[in-house]
């Protein structure tokens, strides 16, 4: 039976854990930024990770964003047909994808795929003493393990988002042109007339931060694994859940910021 004292103690512990988690993320971010210019640069590790994270994520990001484009076109058509305004489907698909869905969906896919992988990999390295071994061999684990993942996610999430936006718009185009009989040129005109640079910028700026969040949370959880295989499993779950929450929360923050301060 939980006593009132135990109940408050649990709440207190959770609050302390929450703040120590954030403090850990901030500390790791600072350590990572400090280590970026440290030598040896190890550029090959950046390309290795970019290949793993970017190129290997491309098929799944493309597939999902294509479906999102199709779904968006169909759902919009449901309303627009009632108002005989089908031509606006192109505008809605383009704006929704570039400003919101493209960046967020890409970040969530990369978090689920690469973020979880990073936590599991670093967690396994931590419990098998490979991280300790790195240190005894004179390598800084943050420089060797975190920096290349941090940089490649920061670069690759925006790059993947650009492709996701384009493929999503193409999905919408297929539905509009071949299912709803909107002229191809009209759809393209409506898409590019509506889109302004701000839509692209605001979408892409967010993704830089999404990439950083995925890298820092995944590496933090991985490097702090305790307790063998079970610990790795728990850390991986925690990493994905925390990254999802932080991506959505920061998306809300950036959307509000751009809405109020970047007219």
């Amino acid at each position, binding site marked *: 039976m939980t006593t009132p004292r135990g109940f408050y103690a649990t709440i207190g512990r959770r609050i302390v854990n929450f703040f120590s988690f954030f403090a850990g993320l901030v500390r790791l971010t600072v350590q990572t930024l400090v280590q970026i210019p440290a030598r*040896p640069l*190890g550029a090959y590790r950046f390309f290795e990770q970019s290949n793993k994270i970017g190129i290997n994520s491309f098929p799944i990001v493309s597939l999902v964003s294509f479906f999102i484009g199709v779904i968006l076109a169909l759902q919009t058509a449901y309303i627009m047909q009632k108002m005989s305004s089908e031509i606006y489907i192109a505008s809605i698909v383009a704006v929704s994808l570039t400003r919101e869905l493209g960046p967020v969906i890409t970040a969530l896919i990369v978090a689920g795929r690469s973020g979880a992988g990073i936590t599991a990999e670093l967690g*396994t*390295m931590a419990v*098998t*003493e*490979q991280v*300790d*071994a*790195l*240190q*005894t*061999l*004179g*390598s800084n684990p943050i420089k*060797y393990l975190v920096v290349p993942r941090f940089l490649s996610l920061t670069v690759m999430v925006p790059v993947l988002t650009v492709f996701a936006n384009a493929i999503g718009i193409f999905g919408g185009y297929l539905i509009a042109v071949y299912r709803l009989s909107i002229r191809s040129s009209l759809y393209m005109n409506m898409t590019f007339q509506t889109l302004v640079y701000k839509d692209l910028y605001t979408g892409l700026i967010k993704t830089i931060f999404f990439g950083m969040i995925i890298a820092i949370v995944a590496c933090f959880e991985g490097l702090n694994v305790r307790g063998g295989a079970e610990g790795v499993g728990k850390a991986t779950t925690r990493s994905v859940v925390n990254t999802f929450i932080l991506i959505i929360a920061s998306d809300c923050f950036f959307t509000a910021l751009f809405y109020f301060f970047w007219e």
Partner: protein
Amino acid sequence: MPMIELVDVSKNLAGKQVLDHMSLIVEEGETKVIIGRSGVGKSVTLKHIVRLMEPDTGQVRVQGRDVLSLKGKDLSELHRQIGLVFQGGALFDSLTVGENVGFVLREHMGTKPVEIEERVRESLALVGLYNVEQVMPADLSGGMKKRVALARAICTRPKIILYDEPTTGVDPITADAINLLIDELHDKLKVTSIVVTHDMRSAYKVADRIAMLYEGRIIAEGTPDEMRYSHNPYVHQFITGAAHGPITEGQSSIVKNSID
């Protein structure tokens, strides 16, 4: 000047006093074996020497230099002088055996690829392995992993080698081969070694001196023969592997620094 010196080192981990004013001296060229039950702080002692851990109080000195005061290049230099062979090998899964062994040369010393290849081959030959450079660690047996880990530790020709449970988890024949290897490397490379183990056969075979760690302190130290015939009840119970005795009765802090 001793090669390694731990002075009055204390370390508390998660509320447990693992090391309690522990002192230890290892002379140059000596192979010192630290024995003790699992969880008594043997590996923690090694981690203090390479500064993977820092003591709550006390000092750790290697070649007379305070390890805790070392930073940047000096710390890297210390790491190059000490080879640590981890219990499970701690080989990097994503790298081949050759890349593991030549890791420091490639990452930190700017050695030419041809020279790295040569040094890797030499180091692997020293531990009795040939033509395994392209094999991934996952494809090696337990004993081979330990040998590769040892080859990685000696690749920079360190002055000190620390072995964490080198014979744990391998069959008796492989264990004996590893003991011979420790002896051979000691003779060939003239290194100072600390071997942490609870395997008494291994301890007798490789040690110049044996120290027993109990309740966070060294409670007895001597040559293998002195330890073998020690009247200290704690040492006696441990080396004979008796289930009953002062260690398992939970007695504490009675004996210190004596071999009767």
